[in-house]
């Protein structure tokens, strides 16, 4: 089944480039220009992966991640954070506190992003399958 990726960035050229690359690999992609729009899209149809910029108007990437983690229906969705900040962010803390799966520093390589996305989605699939097996095993 085609995986759905939500892509959120206030920079249109980045949205366009990453969308182009992800579609080429066969992912289906939804776009949002800020966290608020992204949240609305997520609630409509939960994506398999969220790729979001950090600094955006109205609702930034970390606030979006917080909403995603606080909602039971979306809290399992893996989250890749794109950021121009880098050294100012504590990646361990972000992982522990907001479940940020991966942080990619700008300027990033779309090729690398596709590789990361594929890896995360595969392990998420494997993780959910094994979780399901474990669940069956205990019942």
């Amino acid at each position, binding site marked *: 089944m085609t995986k759905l990726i939500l892509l959120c960035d206030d*920079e*249109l050229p*980045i949205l366009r480039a990453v969308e*182009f*690359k992800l579609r080429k690999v066969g992912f289906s992609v939804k776009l949002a220009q800020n966290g608020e729009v992204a949240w609305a899209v997520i609630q409509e149809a939960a994506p398999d992966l969220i790729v979001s910029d950090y600094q955006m*108007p109205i609702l930034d990437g970390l606030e979006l991640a917080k909403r995603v983690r606080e909602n039971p229906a979306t809290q399992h969705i893996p989250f890749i954070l794109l950021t121009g900040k880098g050294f100012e962010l504590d990646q361990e803390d972000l992982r522990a506190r907001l479940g940020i799966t991966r942080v990619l520093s700008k*300027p990033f*390589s779309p*090729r690398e992003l596709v590789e990361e996305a594929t890896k995360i989605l595969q392990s998420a699939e494997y993780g959910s399958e094994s979780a399901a097996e474990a669940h069956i095993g205990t019942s």
Partner: protein
Amino acid sequence: MTRQQMGTLFRNLCCLGGISALSIAVLTLGLGTGGWEPWVAAAAVTLFGTAVVLKSTVSSKERETTRRWLEELVRRLESVVAGKTVLEPGVTLEFPKGYDDIGRQLTRRIEQLGELIEGLTQAQAVAEIRAQKATMVARQIASVLDLLPDPVLVVNGFDRVEVANSAAREFLGLKELDTDDGRSCVGNELFQELMARIRRLKIRDTQFDWEGNDGDDHRFHFRVLVREWRPDGQESSLPSLAIVLEDTSSLTNLRKRHAEFVSAVSHEMKAPLAGIRAYVELLADEDVDETTRDEFVTTIESQIERLQRLIENLLNLARIEAGIMKVKKQNYSLNEILEDAARVMRPHAEQKHIDFQCELSPLYLGVVADRDLLLQAAINLLSNAIKYTPDGGKVVLRSRMEEEYAAFEVEDTGVGLSPEDCQRVFERFYRVESHKNMAPGTGLGLPLTKHIVEDVHGGRITVRSELGKGSTFVVEIPRAVAVSGSVGRAVSVGS
């Protein structure tokens, strides 16, 4: 001889005549009886009478001398008491017999008294001058202290405030210090917290950082400088404290703003770089058709331009700081410069579905300008308007002829500015708090624009705005007298 002396002499002569007559009468009566007794009696009467007259004459002279002497003493005393520092030369004093020594002593004492009073009077005058001067100096010091932006306090050994400049009074919320023995600040929380911190210090002559919230809930950052001193210099007395609160909030803010600036600049640079890198990689990796290829190349070009504009802003600001801005002014049409700016910014407005309109004056608006700088100013204003206007909003660029100026304005239907922000948006690195989440920015665009308009072109920039409704930035540049004026006149404008 005075009339008084003549009177005394006449009286004495009369007495002498009376005595002689009495003696003759005694003698005449005695001769009738015979024998020596009448002669003796007459002689006795004469001698006694003469003695009496003589005595009277002598004592009257002495009394006169004494009286004159006393009068002179009184005169001198009066003169001394009246504060006449230089004694008028009086009559030469003639002392009664036997009174010479005491008379001279008295005179000497009066002279000493005079000198003493003279000294005292001079001392009093000096003291008055000094007191006036001290009052003046105290007033000067108080007004100088009041000029200082930092709060200054003197607190005595009983924790009473003896000196507080206006900054200190304002900070602590005190009115005038009207009592002589200082003002008690028992109920003043800020003062009590300050004194509690000072009491905890091991060394009294020191400094420490103090931050907190004041009565109006404003955050303050102070470096507190404390000096202990004893007003009378006595080791045993209770020491007073001189306290200066050096406001470091501006320094702290500046550092914070600088850090934010570096972060914002790197973000601003990384955004176009990220675009360039992504599209270069796409072109290298993917097999794309020609249309897509053209689209990617155009995007790369626009991102490179964006990066270039940012670097130019940064460089120009650095040049301003270093004072090495090179300005090349010539006659230009303001409308042409504005059209160029609109051409650069139109794609950005379209991207956000912003209704971007140009309402340029049909008149020729000649300005003597550095084209590149004025273009940068116009682009900065348009870029801000587009950045802070939500999707679907409206931005209008207008130009018009004014009496002395060629003016243009950029009006938007964006988020708007508070009155305080209107005052501060032209400060370097200042970023409106509520705008930080709206769009990235360096806080450089407006200060640079202001510099270009006001310092380089002798014009002026103003802003009017309403929160939630939008802002209008108005730029006025002195008009060049391009049509009829000589070149010399034209060049002199704004140069």
